[in-house]
């Protein structure tokens, strides 16, 4: 029970756009995941290069596609 409470309060860090830019510039492609949780139409219109698309309604079923060891940046 304590474990699931802990997960509930795991802090998620907020990144400013400029910080994300710095992060991308200083980390090799493939060492982190960029996750786009919007709808396909929005992704198609424009997305951050290299982002994976998993629309939010599908995330609960599809999250296993992602490597939990890699940092994830969600937008």
């Amino acid at each position, binding site marked *: 029970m304590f474990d699931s409470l802990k997960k509930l309060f795991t802090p*998620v860090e907020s990144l400013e756009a400029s910080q994300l830019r710095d992060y991308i510039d200083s980390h090799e*492609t493939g060492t982190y995941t960029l996750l786009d949780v919007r709808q396909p139409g929005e992704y198609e219109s*424009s997305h951050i*290069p290299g982002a994976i698309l998993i629309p*939010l309604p599908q995330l609960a079923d599809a999250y296993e596609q992602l490597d939990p060891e890699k940092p994830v940046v969600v937008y």
Partner: protein
Amino acid sequence: MAAQLLAGHGFKHIYNLAGGIKAWQGEVAEGPVELNLDMVRGDEMPEEIIRLAYGMELSLGTFYRTAQATAGDTDVVALLDKLASVEDAHKQYLLQLQATMTGREISPKAMDGEVSQKALEGGFGTEDLLKNNQKFLHSIPDLLDLSMMVETQALDLYVRFANKTDSQETKRVLYRIADEEKGHLAALGRLRQEKSSE
């Protein structure tokens, strides 16, 4: 919301982009997830992927050189020349990567002969580019914007190729090629900054 969900499933390092993509100031890619993914099956060995990337870079270089004939402005012609030589550098990098990964050295000429028609025609859609973007040939900033757009699409495509690939080794190769694109995109961005303040 998405972040909390991931936290609940054991993801260790989660970040949220404040303001979402609207806050993003950098380059953006367009197109659905499947765009040009039909160029790969998903089971390619590194060597085949390198040949594919090489074909795409070759066609882009040809595009820049062909565009020189239509461009009137000598500054634009000079920039097209520079952009074409960036493509040559991309190709050199790929040949080195090939040698490192497979131990097989191959000359540019031999590689030129091995690339598939599919790679030349697909990828960056250079024929369409030339048809639809004549105006970019008249202005340095426009040309740089076009080039950055193409490089950004390339970066995105290589990562999407990697997501489709089964082989860890091929994924690694694609990530390295993507990083090469990143580097050139950064250089183009700096050049763009320079030119806009002239």
